[in-house]
């Protein structure tokens, strides 16, 4: 009996939380997309074909099906952080190691890349 009146409150709270989480995920995807296209920041488009981006570069591989290619997001994060660790010859700048992007920004870009 004592728990009964609380139930709707819990439900409402849960629904609110879920809503916030979805909104947050959407906003990081949007942020990530912005960073990926921004010349001063991620600038992924300079070297990679990305759906929705005009005049892409051709140095790196097209960014698509990344969730299938890298089911573990930490792998994608590591590539953006410092791809020279895996491939010393890579052209890809070490965005994390050289502080071009913050950890949070890299996270947002990974969120965006996983939607491609």
């Amino acid at each position, binding site marked *: 009996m004592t728990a009964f009146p609380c139930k709707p409150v819990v439900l409402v709270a849960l629904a609110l939380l879920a809503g916030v989480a979805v909104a947050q995920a959407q906003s990081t995807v949007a942020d990530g997309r912005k960073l990926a296209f921004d010349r001063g920041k991620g600038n992924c488009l*300079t*070297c990679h074909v990305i759906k929705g981006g005009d005049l892409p*570069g*051709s*140095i790196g591989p097209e960014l698509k099906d990344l969730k299938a290619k890298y089911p573990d997001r930490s792998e994608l994060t590591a590539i953006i952080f410092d791809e*020279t660790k895996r491939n010393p*010859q890579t052209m890809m*700048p070490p965005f994390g190691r*050289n502080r071009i992007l913050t950890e949070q920004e890299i996270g947002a870009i990974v969120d965006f890349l996983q939607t491609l």
Partner: protein
Amino acid sequence: MRTRAALLLGSLSAALVAFALTSPRVVAADKIDPVADAKAFQNFFFQKFPNVKHEDFVNGPYSMNADMKRQWQEKEEFPPYEFALDAGKEMFATPFKNGKTYADCFPNGGIGIRQDYPYFDTKEGKVVTLELALNRCRAANGEAPYSYVKDEMASLTAYMAFTSRGKLMDIEIPDDPRALEAFENGKRYFYTRRGQMNFSCASCHVQSPGERIRAEILAPALGILNAMPIYRSEWSGMGTISRRFVTCNSQTRAVPLEPQSDEYRDVEYFLSYVANGLPIAGPGARP
């Protein structure tokens, strides 16, 4: 005594033979060999782009893309560097306050000599570029130096390049350890990664020529200086070799050096030497 000496000599020569047998690679790698380097450098590009005529590499991105080449050829009918060329010609003919001219500072009156620059000055023990020689000429005649990156310097070098068009790059490396070291130093700078983006000159211009960064096409390093100076649309104006080096550094978020610093002079020496045999095409036009 004699046997001991013979033994010593024997073991010494055995050691030498062993050394010679085991380490020829090491010895070869340690030796600075510009002739072999230039051959390997050129072959790399010739093999990577078998359809590009060798003399066409000096046209940079246009050698890599047919569409761009056509647009450029149309543009060449009214080339954007023309005003600089005309200005340079006039400046070149105008006497300094002391009555002398640029022609007095250069072999052959400065005409048709672009392909011989930069050269190694054995007296100074350093590389002397054309831009440097022009400002030294001014200083020697009591004139203030010009900025190395554009304007008058670009006009003068445009004219001097124009009178040398078609002549083959002909850089010499004299038998002087300092000249070899300058070449090697330039090569080292060219291949060393630097700056926030972690690019070397070679990342873009050896690893990725012909590839696009957004709408731009990366130029091959082979012959990249033969078309200097250039009118660059991105700059809305002319730029010298110095300007090219400085902007390459700053665009990759590395710290640019002073124009005509020793390292830039050495890079120019290296890049020009490995382009030996390719024609002078300056002044050029680039997007």
